Each structure stands twice: as C-alpha cells, then as structure tokens.
C-alpha cells in the first residue's frame, strides 16, 4: 500500500510493512542441509577484503570531511569529494593537510620553501598562503585518501 499525504508543505509518502507476521509457520529446519559435494574452493577462501583496514590505520584519530570548492583539482581532489583524514600523523613537507586557518577548515598542500611555510593550492587561480604567525593557523589533520565518485551520486 502506498499513499501520499501533505504535511506542512512536505510531501510524505506512506507505505505499509507488516507489523508482525500473522500466520504461524512451523520451521522444521532453520539451516539448509548440505547435499552433494562441498565446494572445492572452500579451503582456499581467505578473508574478505575490508576497505577500512586498507585506508584507516588509526580509527579513533580518523575523520571524514567533504571537499567544498575547486582549490585542489590538480591534486585530483574535486568538489564534493570525500577525504580521509588521519590526525595522528605528523605532516611532512608537501603533505596534503586539513588546516584551521582563521577559524575555517581548509585543504591545501603544506609546503616549506626557503625556511617559510606555505599552504599551497593545486589550482592556478588560488594564491599561496604564507603561514607566519600573522594568521591564525593550526594543522587539523593529514589527508590520506580521497574518495571520488565516478557516478553522479
């Protein structure tokens, strides 16, 4: 069953699902009985691959953030991409980091040139930002992976 109702300007769709089973079924067996030969591959199945295990080394220090803007497109980081950020890592020269710059979270390359530190965008239209104490700057975390959807979802 499906019906629509209007509430405070929102369209709400209502479907019905069973509140509980009406009929009583008597299960004779709760598991399937194996018949025939077992799969020859059975002994060779390793564990399933887990993307978390691959991409997240320090779960309690790992955060996901959403990219808003075009400043890192030459590094393959696009608007709406998802970044995996590991706060437990120390940024190295040229690490892509999330920084707190004057109260805003921003993603940039952290780069040392002639003893000065810069936040460098990967897009010609964005100037380098020197971090020298004039601006409120703090490393928030080190980006470790970018997740870019190849479909428009």
């Amino acid at each position: 069953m499906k019906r629509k109702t209007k509430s405070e300007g929102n369209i709400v769709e209502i479907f019905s699902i069973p509140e509980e089973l009406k009929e009583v079924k008597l299960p004779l067996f709760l598991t399937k009985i194996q018949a025939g030969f077992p799969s020859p591959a059975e002994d060779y199945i390793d564990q399933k691959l887990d993307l978390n295990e691959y991409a997240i080394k320090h779960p309690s220090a790992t955060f996901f953030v959403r990219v808003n803007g075009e400043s890192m497109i030459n590094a393959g980081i696009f608007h709406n991409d998802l970044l995996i950020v590991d706060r437990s890592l120390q940024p190295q020269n040229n690490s892509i980091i999330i920084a707190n710059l004057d109260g805003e979270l921003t993603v940039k390359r952290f780069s040392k040139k002639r003893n000065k530190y810069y936040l460098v965008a990967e897009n010609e239209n964005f100037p380098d930002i020197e971090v020298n104490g004039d601006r409120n700057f703090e490393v928030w975390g080190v980006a470790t992976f970018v997740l870019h959807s190849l479909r428009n979802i």
Partner: protein
Amino acid sequence: MSRPIFALIDCNNFYASCERVFNPKLNNVPVVVLSNNDGCIISLSNEAKAIGIKMGEPIFKIPHMVKKHNIQVLSSNYTLYGDMSQRVMDTLKNFSDEIEVYSIDEAFIKISNYTFDSLTEYGRKIRKTVKQWTGIPISVGISPSKTLCKAANHIAKRMKEYNGVLDLTDHKDADKLLDKIDVRDIWGVGRQYTKFLKSYNINTAKELKYADEKFIQKYMTKVGRQTVLELKGIACKELEQETSDKKGICCAKSFGHKLEELYVIKEALANYVSIAAAKLRRQNLAASEVVVFIETNRFTSDPQYFNSASMGPEIPSSYTPKLINIAHKLLDEIFRKGYKYKKVGVMFNHLVKQNTIQFDLFKPQPTTEMFTIMKTADRINSFWGRNTVKSAACGVNIRTWWMNQKKLSKRYTTVWSELPLVS
C-alpha cells in the same frame, strides 16, 4: 614496579571542546552548551567561566551577557559527544589495556609499565596524544589510588603551572596541594558528609587525610575510611571495567512543553522506540522485555502521576513496528487522562545477541524480509539523517512535543550528509 599506579583522564569542558574541533571559529571565544530543551548551561569554555558564567545557569536569565560578550550558545549534540567520547577512550587504550570508562568524559586507566623517565612525562604524552588524535584537551591526575587521582586531576585542571598533568605519587608537596582542596571536592564526600566534616573542623583534603580513621569509620562507614586511606595513597578501589554485554537500552526525553493528549504522547513514544530499536540493531541485539514509563513534572504544583509497565515480545525482537506496537499497548495501560505529562520513555531489557535467539516452534518467526526492511531503513537514515524513513506512528507533522534544540550543530562524525566541509 611494586604497586599499581592509576591515572584519571578528564576531558576539559568536554561538550564545548567537541564543538570546537569541528567549528574552530569557536576557539578563544566564550562558548556554552545547553541541556536538553535548551534550558540550562551544562558545559562552558574557560572564556565563558572567566566572564562569570556558571554551570547550571538557565540561559534565559542571562540574555544581556550573551549579547554583551557575544557568547556562542549551542544545543547539546549528544550524537557528536558520544562518538567523540568513544574516540578519546579508544585513544587511551593505546596507553593501557586496563581502562574504566567512568563517564562520557572521564576514564581511569591503570599504568603497569611505561617507557618514560617519569610518570609526569608519561601523563604529558597521554595528554598530547589525545589532543592531537581527537582534538579534545584533557587533564591527567596520576597517583597510587583513584581518589588521589581525582584530587590530582582537580589541581591539574585549575593550576596553570601544572599544564594539565599532575602526578601525586610520592610528591613532596602533596600535603600542601591537598590543603588547597576543599573537602567537598573530594571524590565520595557528598553534601551531607561535607557538612558533618566541617562541623568537626575537617575542611580540606589534607585534614581529611590525617583525620582519625576510627572516627571516620564510625560516622562515615567503611567507605569513608577507604577515602582516608586512598588519600594516603593506599588503593582500596579497583578499576571497574565494563562488561561486554549491555544490560539495557533506554530512550527517554522530556517534552518541549507539557503534553496531555494520548495520541501526541504515543507519537513521541514511537520516536523513542525507533531510536532505541536502531541502537539495538547496531549492536546486533534483540530485546526480550519492553518497559514503558511516563511521568508528570515533579517541580510544579500540578497533580502528579507516574507509572510504568512491561511486557515481552514472544521472541526477542529488534523489529521497530513490533516494538512500537508493544510500547503503545503498554502506554494504553498506564496512561491516565487529566495529567500534564513531562516525560515518556522506553527501555529494552534482557538483551540477547540476534544470532543466539531461541525460536519457538509454535510462535511466529521473524522473516528475513523484516530484517531487510529494517536494515534498509537504517542505512537510509544513516546517510540522510535520522527520520528520513520512519514508522508512520512517529507522526508526519512537525512535532509539537519535540525538544527545543534551536542551536544544534551537525553530527559531523556519524552522518554522511553532515560531514565537516573543507574549502
């Protein structure tokens, strides 16, 4: 090491600190977090403390302060605080296998071996790591007993020179420091005992430490004597580590304003059941008993009523429609007309692992279809936010009973559509 050493880790201004991690604009300005219904201040930043704002103060009493000091006021975002708490506790597990999570923002750990020159150095390492990994500032109190850890933490948090870490183990100035702590701030000394102790001129932690043990035992029982011993650095209390199986899951909240109509309360209850049932499923648990309770506001002169009732599904269940159905039957039983209700809640008890449920040959079996429906709904809601898909019993109109939470921040760490944005 001859004797065990404990450390108490306490997050500084925890809720306000959680908000700051994801909204750095809140750094260095006064921040307060309000209780459910945006009533009273339950967490405040040091900047807010410095201008004289007090814990527990109702926000409606200080609009002039809020305006004058541009205080950032936030509703409590327990989803965020719960996740951040878990992260802090998990980070602490890198320092010790033995951990007692004492509250959302406090934990004791037992230090059995450490690779630093001193315990203070080790405490600093813990503090630095938690701050870097989670963004949460903490204070660390170290000593051979839990009570002394609490006292050490109390000092570490308040006296700047300690930089958030104080080790009272064999500390040469321990007595001098304990003399600065009011006896009411000692763990386990409640309001009544404070009065009692002060009437005998025992005013500070140091004075309690050197009080006559027999006298204390006589008037404050064995527990009081343990406090004295613990202040002397003799451990009486062990770590209480959590048991793996949850005993019960509860969801109960106060209404934004008082409710009298059964159908509105039913709607609220259906929402709480949905929240608690989703929690069951996240942990692969099923409930064998459903308890519903309802109460009026004790702090008014209105006629008072409270009651509860319980009932079990035939077989343990985590299926939201089934649980709502039971909860509504229970509410029908205990609801009385003519009262102004303040709170309704549901509790699931006797939780069992979903895969160990004993089926009954003669009763309805849960179908895989039921699991699939709930799993799908949970996934949609975890992506698009709670209540994107919900039981119709939860109501389709703007909820009149819902808590007032006007300044709620995003659930930055638990909902895909609410992740922090980086530019």
